[in-house]
């Protein structure tokens, strides 16, 4: 289960994620981002502290938003103070691309 809460709307969007972000739950996040419309977003901050699980598919989805926004001169940030989630982000090397 993934709960997606849009804390702050366009153009400086903040989205808090709770639960698990993986292949089966990514659609809920995609729907929320689609509704906000990427073209109107200047920056997209994901708060991951409420996540229990994130796997490589979930991280791939976040990197996809980074790529899409980079083409529009936008930025993606990952906020997180959950040690287990941070370990996985570090393991995959995402922190070299997406910072807090």
């Amino acid at each position, binding site marked *: 289960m993934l709960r997606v809460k849009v804390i702050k709307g366009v153009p400086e969007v903040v989205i808090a994620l709770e639960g*698990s972000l993986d292949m089966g739950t990514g659609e809920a996040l995609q729907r929320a981002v689609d509704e906000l419309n990427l073209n109107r977003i200047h920056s997209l901050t994901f708060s991951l502290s409420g996540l229990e699980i994130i796997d490589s*598919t979930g991280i791939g989805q976040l990197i996809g938003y980074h790529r899409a926004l980079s083409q529009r001169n936008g930025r993606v940030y990952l906020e997180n103070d959950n040690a287990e989630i941070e370990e996985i982000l570090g393991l995959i090397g995402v922190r070299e691309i997406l910072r807090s």
Partner: protein
Amino acid sequence: MTLPGFDLISATGGWAFPIFAVLGCYFCYRLGRRVQKAKTEQAKDQELFAAYQEVIPLVTCGTLRLISPEEYQNAYSKDKPLLVIDIKQKDDVRLVRQTVDQFFSGVFTTWSEVRGGILTALSEAVTNVVKHTPGGRLLVYLDPAGPRFHVEDYGSGMDLAKLPAMFVSGYSEKSTLGAGFTIMMRYVEQIEICTSEAGVSLVLRTNVGQMLSRKRTRREGGDFHALSCRAAAEAGNGCGQNHLWQ
């Protein structure tokens, strides 16, 4: 009774015979070449398998092993699974996690401390089945060290030549295969890969005690993996500076 070929030869006054003979020789030659090529390819595959079987455990500190279908059968065919869960669609990634989580929370008192890593590793293995194959199943066992998971798929097997891609740690633009295996190798004690034309079976062995020590070491500011690799190097198993993940 006359053979149709001979009818044709006599009907053409015998001139067709050399043509048939040449054609026959040519087809025999082509068939021979094809058989030879198949044998060479099979021999190449066997050589590649033998080389990987030797090298993979060395470069992964023994975390990853390649085993043959016979070895898989001999080692595990008598074990009775505690759980069998079908894997077919996206949502099964979550369902598998949920079922395993519920099951082991009643088995281990320390499950809450290790569940995150184990369930993430399991997510990666199950996601591979959903993404790349028509489906599969998860079999769950319990060893003295911790849960053991067999993720079997009904695909057409793994291309051995692409196996080194698994060692590319980090997120890759072309494929997330490297990232998935990096995560799995971090949270399980050992992964055995068995691939054949009937599909791939992954055996994920966990070690709950080791995971707890790692957590404790990390809380105290150390790096468990660096320590364990150093210990392995001191024990002389060829690991040490060359480990592939952080």
